[in-house]
């Protein structure tokens, strides 16, 4: 059993995760990547998606991230995201309303709505929900 690597997930609001983990898998913009201890220094942007990691006890955990940056060092992974939530902290109800609102906005096709923003909101809501849903199937 190899050593563990430190995982830090920080957002402007708070530090979401700070613990020693076995492996981290994150959604890089150029493709998903996994980090184990002793990784080469590495810096990349993240897209909207899910960061998975195995905690020290071997339990697999999920975090929703809304895009951001990840920096991997041999003994540490830092993820800077504008928002990040552990799966258990996701408010599925709120995400669902957000999803509906975004869908509605996109369907209306009005000129005065910000299409890009609505799209982004839709994607965020969908991802949040999909992360939240895996909770049930496990």
């Amino acid at each position, binding site marked *: 059993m190899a050593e563990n690597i430190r995982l*830090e997930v*920080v*957002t*402007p*609001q*708070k*530090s979401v995760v700070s613990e020693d983990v076995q492996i981290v898998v994150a959604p*890089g*913009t*150029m493709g998903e990547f996994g980090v184990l201890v002793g990784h*080469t*220094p*590495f*810096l*990349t*942007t993240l897209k909207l998606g899910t960061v998975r990691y195995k905690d020290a006890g071997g339990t697999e955990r999920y975090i929703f991230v809304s895009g951001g*940056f990840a*920096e991997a060092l041999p003994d540490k992974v*830092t993820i*800077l995201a*504008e*928002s990040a939530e552990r799966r258990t902290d996701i408010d599925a109800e709120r995400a669902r309303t957000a999803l509906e609102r975004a869908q509605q906005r996109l369907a209306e096709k009005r000129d005065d709505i910000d299409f890009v923003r609505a799209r982004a909101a839709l994607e965020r809501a969908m991802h949040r929900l999909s992360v939240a849903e895996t909770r049930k199937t496990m």
Partner: protein
Amino acid sequence: MATLKDVQNKISAVKKTKQITKAMNMVAASKLRGAQSTMEAFRPYAGKFADVLGSLADKAGEEANPLLVPKETVKNVHIILNTSDKGLCGGFNTNLNARADALLKELKAEGKEVSFTNFGKKGRDWARKKGHTIIDEYLGVVGSSFEFSVASISGRKFIEKFIFGTYDEVYVIYSEFQGMARQVAKAKQLLPIPPLETAEETKDDNAPYLAEHIAEPSAEELLGEMLPRSVYVQIYSALLETSTSEHAARMTAMDNATKACNDMIENLTLVYNKARQAAITAELMDIVGGAEALKG
């Protein structure tokens, strides 16, 4: 000469005012704690961000991104003015507006056009009264709990306008929280992004930070992703600082007001006692005088 009743009324009025100022002081204190903890929570993010950004900029070189390059001719300048929505916080807003005014005069003297975006009602009212151009206003942000998205949504607008050439320079005016009794109005250049400090200078490790990093995609592209965010980070931190300062300023102002009330109550009580004493003396004189007269 004020009658006893008048003085009594005055005393009770001052006491009521004191209750209000004291309550406001306590409310501001609790909000200040909240704002300070938000600032604390933001620090790790901002710190890490600056580290990574500094080393990246070093790697990608200057002029790797349009946000870093100053415009050749600067004609239109935009000022983001952060103030509070509410008053009763001493010279807090006056200082911020004065700082804005100073910057404005400086820019106008160089023949530049200035427009404003206002966070907070007091600054907006000031700019409106002076007849300055207000492009955008955000009320109900400073002093309350707000999310990072406020900074990123407004920040995106500034960046777009900077790139399209509507603005040639963007400044932000905010109040720096230097401690309970010290909040300083500051002006900072937001766009073009001032030359970034490289990370090596701050690190004492002999190996330059990030030098060996593999960047994906390229360092330039990463920088392009990070620079706009660094602008949001700046705006967010300016908003946080201003909010914290506002609460601190209000706390101090209300504390002073409460003290002033105490002084007033003390003085008025003195006046009241003197008046009462005088009344008693006068009455006694009357009685004595009457008795003497009866004796004949």
